[in-house]
Every structure is written in C-alpha cells, then in structure tokens.
C-alpha cells in the first residue's frame, strides 16, 4: 500500500476511466502540468497513467490520478506546497531543455550556407 492512502486526501472522482480523470484535472485546476507515467510523488508513489498524465494545482492542493487495478482511476487532492513546487520546477526544466534543443537546431540551420554564392565558395 502506498503512503498516499495514509495521508489526508480528498477524492474528487472515484472508480472512473483514466481519460475522464485526466479531463477532470484539466477542467478543474488553476495550473495543469503534464508528466510521464512513473513520475514519483510523496516518497513512494509512482504515477500510473496513459501519457500525457495531467497533474493539477488548485490553491495549495495538488490534484492527481491514482489507479488501482480492481477499482479503476481516482482523482485525489492533497495539500502539498512541496510537491507543487517540484511540479513547477520540473516544468521549468522541461522548458529549459526544449529551449536548448531549439537553439541547437537554429545554430545548425544558420551554419548552413546563406546563399548560392556561399555554397559556391565551399
């Protein structure tokens, strides 16, 4: 049993499909972040899900999906500034990486000859 079940949580959807749970989080959160399945929260719970897995922030509460093989998907809410900050940091890292990739691609493009004349020089 995950430590989540021993924490103080709220249930917003019970025994639903993963798709409906994701849509609930997307519609009912002030901020939505997407993570891969396997993203770790609260020390020992790895998120189970179909990518893209939505995680929501509503005030001090983090909304996330919790899947049990015999009971389906639940949308849970737990107050945790620490986990919310980690989500935001994770998002910043993703943006940084995609910016770096973008700059690298741009550099590769600009390193190509700019005109037919330049090509001829080569």
């Amino acid at each position: 049993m995950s430590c989540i079940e021993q924490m103080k949580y709220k249930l917003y959807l019970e025994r639903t499909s993963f798709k409906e749970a994701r849509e609930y989080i997307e519609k009912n959160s002030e901020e939505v972040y997407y993570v891969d399945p396997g993203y770790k929260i609260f020390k020992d719970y790895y998120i189970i899900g179909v990518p893209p897995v939505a995680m929501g922030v509503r005030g001090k509460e983090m909304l996330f999906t919790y899947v049990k093989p015999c009971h389906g998907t639940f949308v849970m809410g737990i107050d945790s500034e620490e986990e919310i900050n980690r989500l935001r940091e994770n998002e910043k890292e993703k943006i940084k990486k995609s910016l770096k990739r973008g700059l690298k691609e741009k550099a590769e493009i600009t390193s190509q000859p700019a005109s037919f004349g330049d090509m001829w020089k080569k």
Partner: protein
Amino acid sequence: MTEGKKALLVMGCPEVPVQTSMVIYLSHKLHKAGWIVTVAGTDAAVKLLKAADPESYYVQNTIDLDELIGEIIEKKVDFDVCFVFMHSDAGMTYGATFSVISRARIYALVFGKNAEALAETIDYPAEKIVAKATHNPNPLKNKIDKVVL
C-alpha cells in the same frame, strides 16, 4: 534464441476467471522455452496463483505490482518482453505505464466481455492479442499460441 531472456507477466484484477489459468499456462510455456519468467500482480492475484501452484512448478517468480514498477523506474530490473493481462480501463492504463517505463516489447492481452472496445483504446506501442473470453480460456489460449517470440 530465448535462453536466459526475461519475460514479465503483469496481472490485472483477478475478477475475470480466465486470467489466472492463462497466466499459469503462459508462464509454463515460456519457462519451457527457456525464458526466465516473473509474474507481477496485486496481493489477491498473486495469492490466487500461489494457491493453485503451491510448489511453484508453473510460476517460479512472483512480485507485487507496485513494488516492481518502482524497481523498473529505478533501473534495478527490466525485461525483454512484457505481457500485460487486461480486461478493464485500469489494466489498459497499467499497460501504458509499462510501455513508457520499460524497454520490453509489450504484448497487450485483452480479454473479458468488452475486449474489442477496450483494445481500441490502446494507443501506445503494443502488440494486441484480443479475445472475448471470460469463463472459457480457449479463445485467449489459441491466440497466445500464435504469438511468435
């Protein structure tokens, strides 16, 4: 050549009768072909297996599903092939998770009353083996027998 390769069988909720017998069947078949087989499931699903195979003749290695997911993510273990048994949306969701966290080739074994509709929701890389089987294991068994590894 399959000798020494590792296969994982992931059980869903054991409420549909064909699952436990097909897990035992597939585990034995793979083991005889030289695969090292591990079966993962919930506490109830593993208990059902162990009760049916008390001397581990057909199923040699079992592990708790959540514990295994942690071990794969932490790169302590991984597999060459992974058969995910599923008859519900939750099972399909676990299959999606394995397709992301593991390097194994994924086989989605879809069964139960709504097997075809459930199989249509699978949009991750997996070979689908679909049979509308709940009590009679033969439709699923026949399809498993056609899988070439």
